[in-house]
């Protein structure tokens, strides 16, 4: 049963993030873009946490998140966006979609681990 979904079009980031959580004993699935992420999120309703990049081909991360909330109807899954920049509009959209927050890349697993453990457990 997958616990974490990592959505990023960058192989490096995807493997870094998913690798970190796999190493730390989580079950992780990945998706290469927003479309893929949406499909995986809807077919894996037990996912507890989604890490999603913003800029991706086919479907951007925020649109994916909005669709997960509206189309898939998953209102509860924790969502954390990965980004390299800050943008007031994006933050607004994220807040409206009920995301947990933003992580500025580069991703630093050690800082996140304890919190993620709690999220996935809850």
């Amino acid at each position, binding site marked *: 049963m997958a616990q974490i979904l990592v959505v990023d079009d960058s192989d490096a980031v995807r493997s870094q993030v998913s690798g970190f959580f796999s190493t730390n004993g989580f079950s992780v699935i990945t998706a290469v873009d927003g479309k893929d992420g949406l499909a995986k999120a809807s077919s894996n309703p037990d996912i507890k946490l989604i890490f999603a990049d913003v800029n991706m081909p086919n479907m951007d991360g925020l649109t994916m998140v909005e669709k997960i909330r509206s189309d898939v109807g998953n209102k509860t899954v924790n969502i954390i966006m990965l980004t390299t920049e800050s943008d007031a509009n994006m933050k607004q959209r994220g807040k409206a979609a009920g995301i947990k927050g933003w992580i500025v890349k580069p991703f630093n697993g050690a800082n996140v681990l304890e*919190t993620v453990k709690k999220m996935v457990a809850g």
Partner: protein
Amino acid sequence: MHANTLETTPGSGLQPKTPFAHRWMAVLFHVHALMNKVTIRKKIWVSFGVLVVLLVAVGITAFNSLKANKEKLSTLVNDVQPATELSLNLVDQLDRASASLGFYLLSKEQVHKNDYVSNLSKITQSVQTLSAMRIVRDDAATFKMVDEVQQGIAKLQSYKEQMLVFASDDAKNVPALGFASREVNPRAQTMLQSLQEMLLAESGESANQERRQFLLDMFSLRTNVASALNELRIFLAFRADANKENFRSYMELAVRDASKLNGASKSLLNFEQEASFENFNAAFKEWGPAAEQVMKIHGAEDWRQDAYIIRKDLSPLVLQIQDRLTALVKTQHDFSVESSSQLTLQVSHTQYIVAGLIMLGMVCAVMVGFFLTRTILTPIDALKTSAAQLAHGHLDQEIDTRRSDELGSLAHSFSDMRDAIRKKIDDLRVLNVTGQTMASMHDPMKVLEHALKTMRAHCDVEWGSVYLFNAEKSLLEVKAYSPARDESAVHDARTFKLGEGVAGRAAQHKRIIYIPDTTQDHQFEAQLGDDASARAIICVPMVDNNEIFGVMNFCGDVGDVKFVDSDREFAETIARTAVVSFKNIHMLNVIAEQNRTLEQKVESRTAELRQKTNDINNMLQNMHQGIFTILPGRAIHPEYSAYLESIVEDKNVANSDVMDLLFRNTNLGSNALSQISAALDAILGEESMMFDFNRHCLVHEFTRTMSGGRTKILELDWDPIVSETDVIEKLMVTVRDVTELRGLQAEAEKQKSELQVIGQILSVGQDKFIGFIKDATRFLDENEKLINAASNASADIVATLFRNMHTIKGNARTYGFMGITDVAHEAETSYDVLRKNLDSFWDKSKMLEELSRTRQRIESYATINKEKLSNTSSDGVYVDLMLIDKLRVVLEHVNEHDVSALRSAVKTVKSISGAIGTESIPALLDAITRSMPELAQKLGKVAPHIVIKDNGIRLAVEVAQVMKNVFTHGFRNAMDHGLETGAERKAHGKPERGTITLDVREEDGGVVLALSDDGRGLALRKLKEKAAAQGLVHANAELNDHALADLVFQSGVSTAANVSDISGRGVGMDAIRKFVENLGGKVEIRFTKKSTSDAEFRPFESRIILPAACAVKVA
């Protein structure tokens, strides 16, 4: 008002003036008095009774009157009117019957006959009905009239058959016609027939003259007879007298003709004619008179029977009947008119009676109203006024209670109520005063005593006591007495349990127990058998909020004690007030105690808070850290530590963007900056976890370039400030300027390694060290040559390179020069690579670099040795390994993050190790200063006072050597040219003994050695003249003092008049300049006083400025 009337009547105010008036007044007074005795209820009943009687009278009168009218009216409607109607009908029917008869007789039409018959029968019926009417029967005159009518109508009836016969039989009706048909017409017929037969018989005769005459006569006779007959018929039809005349004429003619025939012509008659003529003559003779008879009959008055009868009998009869009927109708009409007028009269009569009675009723009603108003409302008004006055608090006004009716009793009640209120108010006043008094008391016992005292006064009891429950609430114990008792008398005071005794019972039931007489109270005696004397007891429970606290017990003589129901409330209130006051006092004590502690707490807490606030403010103002918080949006909160401004060198901190304030002109790349700002956005205003998620993007140290190109190293700490809802409201940032710390740390590192080197050299010894340096330099030189010469690796070159470097490394290791071993090893490793594989890349530049690095390291060892260890002067620090180790220990144990500790450690080490290889200024000047008195003596001057202020500054050994030469010259110069002779100085008001001062200080990043004397100063004019004489300057050149002073340094210029062996040769100053400039420093003349016009001399100091490296400041 009413009361006033009553009062004044018997008084002197209305004395009767006359006996009559007096009697009236007396009667009125009695009536009035009587009226006041009658109850209002009765008055109202009587008044309304009168009104009811009047109403009944009005009703009966009106009823009776209306009843009589109704009878009359019914007579009119039921009798008179039908009779009149019937009479009029009869008239009408009579008319119709007559008319019908007339029409019938004329037209013989059956319908008129029917009308006539039916009208007749109707008339008969009507008259019978009329005669049967009561009004007709009852009135004789009327009856007579009706009877006559009846008889007339019976007569009219009797003509009926006859008239009907006349109508159907003309012969009977017209007698002439009957007579004619009987007597005339047959004869006429005979005559005419006979004549016709005669004429017919002529036809057989011969027609002669005679005969023709005869025939003519016959014709004439027949014509005349026919004409006469015709006239008769016409007369019968029209009864015109002309026709009668005409008949008679024709008869005469006929008679003439007949006689003619008779007389003259008898012979002419033939047989047939003769017989016929005879028949004619017979008929003619009789016909004539018969015809006359007919005319006579027909001409008579009754020629027509029906008309005759109608005219002669029926018409008068009908008229007579109609007359009677008219009279009858008139009678009825008269009766109606009379009845109506009677009715009208009666109605108006009734109207007057009813109106009169109503008037009477109204008057009675007004009187009743007036009466009731006077007897009810007026006293009520008086009471109302009293009530209003009471309502306004006028309790003392009089209320008249003398009336014995309901109002009287109301007034009584009112008065009672007023008294009750007055008493209540008095009670309340007492209660109020008592309450206030008790509230102002501070002693609970005094409160209880006061309550007892008040009750005693109120109820006239002899003594009272208060029993309060003990702490366990089990026993009532006596607490206070009134009047107060001696404490000793209280020792045997008894206690009560709940329910025990009167007090116990009052407490148990929480209600007042009043025993007017203890001997009469069964229960009391049962409880308290020992005291048999009669007493009155009042026991008042002390209750507040339904909680019992104790009992107030009062005792007095039977009959003296006053205690009514209304006093219960008073007693309860007193008891409650006492309890409340008692509790309040207790509460006040508790509160006062609490307030005292609370005040202390608040005070200490406030002081603590104030202290904390002050501490925080002081901290923010004085801490040598920048502390501030960032709000969402990256703006800086207006509260921040003052030091932040000096760190960032910007006053506009509040509300500015942190990215701009902190990270302007830094060594951070744009990517790092963008990461920081993105991370701040991802943290601020988000859940607390977002700090952990993003803190890796926040930098902790960076270098910032300030204005003027200075750099600052700033260290940052980031801490989130999280709200109760787990949202990061702010980020707290601590900024430290670690520039000095980092510098000190670097300095300490440098010192450490230097000390290491010194230690290593010291442990080897100078000879061995110098030998090592020599060998190493030789090997390095050889290697450099080899590397530069070769373009690729060859086995022997590499072998030489390796061997040389290996030797250096080996030697260094042997001597323990660890700094050299490391770099040598690096180079050796490179050569080793090549040695093992010659085909490896011949990286010349890398190898040269490694070589250079090794050389630098070795040279640094050599330099340290040269500076610190090779030239130790007499006052040099004694350097041994122990000292070096001690210094190293100092550096190693210092807290690297504590700037001041680090600073002092570095300073200590520096001052000690810095002194290694330096010489103190007094030491280096020692020989010079010692030579000064002798020199002064030689010059005939007083030995000068020499002041050396070195400020702890020492000079490097090699610099010290140079400076020794410089100052030898400088001091001699000052002695020779500067200081005047003692006499000269004295003349100028100066002390005989001059002063030469050397002031050494750190200045502008270097060391300044300023030499000055209090002599005459620089001889500016002489200097210029000399320079002009030597052609160095133009004699007329405009030179300022500084330019002139600069001439001092020109080779060969001396202002001294005579060149001594001491100075004045003009080579001194330019030599000094050379020496100093060789050390990287400079020399200048600085005037110490402002220019005075045309002064020959000007005070100055010679300033030798050396680079910082030349000197060491020792604490």
